[in-house]
């Protein structure tokens, strides 16, 4: 203990070693970023025309899933899981699209705020059911995924509705530099405004605490039920943001949920969040989403059979997670 602690103390004294400590702590995300860089170089190599449009298209197509994955990451970090994210996205998206159609631009602002509140409400319903009934979260959210999907179809039977122009503009094109897509900026701002303050607050600590060891958290004075509820509400909020980004991307609302739920779980796992809870962050899952999307578009470009591409996605998921576990086991033994 003393030797190790002394070593870390020394590390704090020297900036180079402090950087090392940072690398060690964020190793998984940095590894994913390196993988992404390699993937971008490879993409450029196979399609020399890949450039500004490619990056912008990538950012736009990634946005909904990235937001959904952030939501999933929050609930998984606190030791739960939410299988209703895809349905909540569909419901919030059709509510936004159906209400905005034919209305003025200013009215759209009100709709957006109302939809975000709806997201919080959906999450609060999920969360209270989990906390109060003590039915396992996986069962509650699976059941609620059918409820929300049904509600979405009640709101809008077929894809339709509309979106305010400013909302669509929010994610299209770039800002300042053509290499910086608006969609990416939107993502960074959303995460910075909502997740970072939470993470730094006592609520953030509590989220990690109940995911890491519920009994220890309880004994440390954390209100486990309230914290769990908060995690589902945050997830609902991010699901609503993801739903809004779908509407912004397409200009309409689609009542049938896309494959977002399970893909978000995959991205969370690939992003270094422990499904057992307590470990990980939201940066890893976001990078993981970009990687998954880029792999898919590369395979499309290479004319790989789309079904085969899906198989490849699964193999990569298992491969990467196995590789990570191996490294962790090696480190634990050392």
């Amino acid at each position, binding site marked *: *203990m*003393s030797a*190790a*602690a*002394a070593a*870390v*103390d020394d590390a*704090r004294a020297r900036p180079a070693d402090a950087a090392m*400590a940072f690398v060690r702590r964020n190793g998984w995300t940095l590894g994913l970023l390196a993988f992404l860089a390699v993937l971008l170089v490879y993409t450029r190599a196979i399609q020399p025309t890949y450039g500004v449009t490619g990056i912008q298209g990538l950012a736009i197509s990634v946005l909904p899933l990235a937001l959904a994955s952030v939501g999933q990451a929050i609930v998984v970090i606190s030791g739960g899981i939410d299988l209703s994210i895809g349905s909540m996205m569909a419901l919030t998206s059709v509510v936004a699209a159906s209400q905005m159609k034919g209305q003025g631009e200013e009215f759209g602002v009100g709709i957006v705020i109302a939809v975000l509140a709806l997201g919080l409400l959906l999450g609060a319903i999920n969360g209270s059911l989990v906390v109060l009934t003590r039915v396992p979260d996986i069962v509650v959210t699976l059941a609620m995924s059918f409820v929300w999907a049904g509600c979405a179809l009640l709101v809008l039977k077929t894809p339709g509705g509309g979106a305010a122009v400013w909302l669509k503009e929010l994610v299209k094109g770039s800002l300042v530099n053509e290499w910086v897509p608006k969609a990416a900026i939107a993502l960074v701002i959303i995460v910075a405004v909502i997740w970072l303050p939470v993470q730094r607050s*006592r609520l953030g*600590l*509590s989220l*990690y*605490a109940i*995911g*890491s*060891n519920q*009994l*220890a*958290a*309880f*004994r*440390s*004075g*954390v*209100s486990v039920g309230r914290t769990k509820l908060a995690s589902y509400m945050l997830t609902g909020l991010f699901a609503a943001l993801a739903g809004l980004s779908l509407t912004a991307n397409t200009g309409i609302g689609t009542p049938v949920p896309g494959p977002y739920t399970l893909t978000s779980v995959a991205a969370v796992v690939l992003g270094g969040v422990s499904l057992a809870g*307590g*470990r990980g962050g939201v940066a890893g899952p976001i990078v993981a989403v970009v990687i998954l999307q880029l792999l898919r578009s590369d395979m499309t470009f290479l004319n790989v059979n789309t079904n085969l591409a899906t198989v490849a996605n699964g193999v990569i998921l298992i491969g990467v997670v196995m590789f990570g576990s191996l490294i962790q086991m090696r480190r634990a033994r050392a």
Partner: protein
Amino acid sequence: MTVTGTDLLLEATGVSKTYGAVVALKSASLAVRPGEVHALMGANGAGKSTLVKILTGAVHPDTGTIAVRGRERVVHSPAEARRGGLVSVYQEPALIPDLDIRSNLRLTETPIEPFRHWLRELGLVDLDLSSMARRVPLASLRIIDLARALAIEPDVLMLDEMTAALPANLTEKVLEVVGRLRGGDRSVIFISHRLIEIAAVCDRATVLREGETVGVVDVTEGSEERIVELMLGQAVEALSAQPEGAAGRQIPAGATPRLTVRGLSHGTKLHDASFELYPGEVLGVVALEGQGQDELFNILAGSERPSEGELLVDGSPVSFRHPADAIRAGLVYVAADRAEALLMQRSVRENIALPFTTRIRSWGPIDLSGERKRVDTAIATLQIDTRARGEVRRLSGGNQQKVTIARWVAGGVRTMLCFDPTRGIDIRTKSQIYVLLRDLAASGAAVLLYTSELKEVQLACDRAIVIFGGRVVAEIAVEDADEPALLRAAYNLRSDARMPEHLAAEAVAEADAAAEAAAEADR
């Protein structure tokens, strides 16, 4: 000395709690004066842990009141207890493994500077606050937990088995710091199995027995005996007469032990434990909670590996990498928790047949008629009530335990390791299980029996060994193994138990050495 209610820092009166039909606390009270270190004592099952849970808000009492500084309080959670001035340090650390130490402090709103001060006082100087709790050694985590509690400056600090498994130098520091709190305006509730620590730091002791507060003792020289007497109460009448053929058979000279344990160590819990188990005997194991008996049984059953020491089965050394290895060597395990052993949704037949069908035939379909014969024999032998045989979970606890024993009897058992097999079982089934264990021994099997109910030792065992602080500190012949003798031995007090002469010299020497070592560890 009389103390009026308002002088008390913490006062619990008439606290009771029942779980279903089980009465955990009948009428417990506890009065803690300012500036004192107050011991809370009680044998296993006396209701100590329930009272602790009630004080900390983890459990609600059915009746009774808790007052802090004369004002009555209702606590619903540790957070509320904390705000009310009562902070607890538990046997296992309450730090969040995936947060660093600094975040753990923030979580409990602990001021950093006082925390550092107490860390230094407790002798932990080189702690890096940004290290993950997961990576900090267990002993340091306990110290951190204590420093964190002290930094909040609670009115009442509750230390629940805080020193269990702490290394000697840290234990000394903890006792020193706790001792220094005496005479201030804060109090400590101190819970420990080590009477030597109680004598060192405590002013008074409240003793619980069978869910009731049976006495408050001023801790002075020689008050240990009084405390043990209170914990025992009136000599408890025996369950029933000793089963026939029981007890006290002499081990033939020169017999090869079925199982030899030499110098077994595991982590901080088990140190250099040695004993022998002979065919045809039931050897009792007696220990207070957490003295290393769990680890011992896990090692013998093959689910954990010892850090040091060796195991011999029938005189030849073995090493188990998996419970299957232990079963192959003839060592089978019966756990206290039936859920660990049974497939609750499956039938009695399948549960009994599970371990030995694999031996009858590794491949191909199961030989059902052969299986049925064996299972039926086992069911008849154990008198298992098979009215609900379709699903094991619908059986009573006692019958479930019989099924876990039956599965090994059906396979022809050579060595059975029973870890508190009668926990929570009705009295009739209990004595049936003891008769069964005696029958097994009579037919040449060796049985190692840990039991948390001391009065059962004389009912079922031929002799008993006592484990304290991870060491075998005493061996007691069955005729001397009455409850007081066992409890004294379990608390590692000198017992005046007589022993067969050929064992006496050896055992006394062993006990002396162990006592010395334990005293050293406590010093």
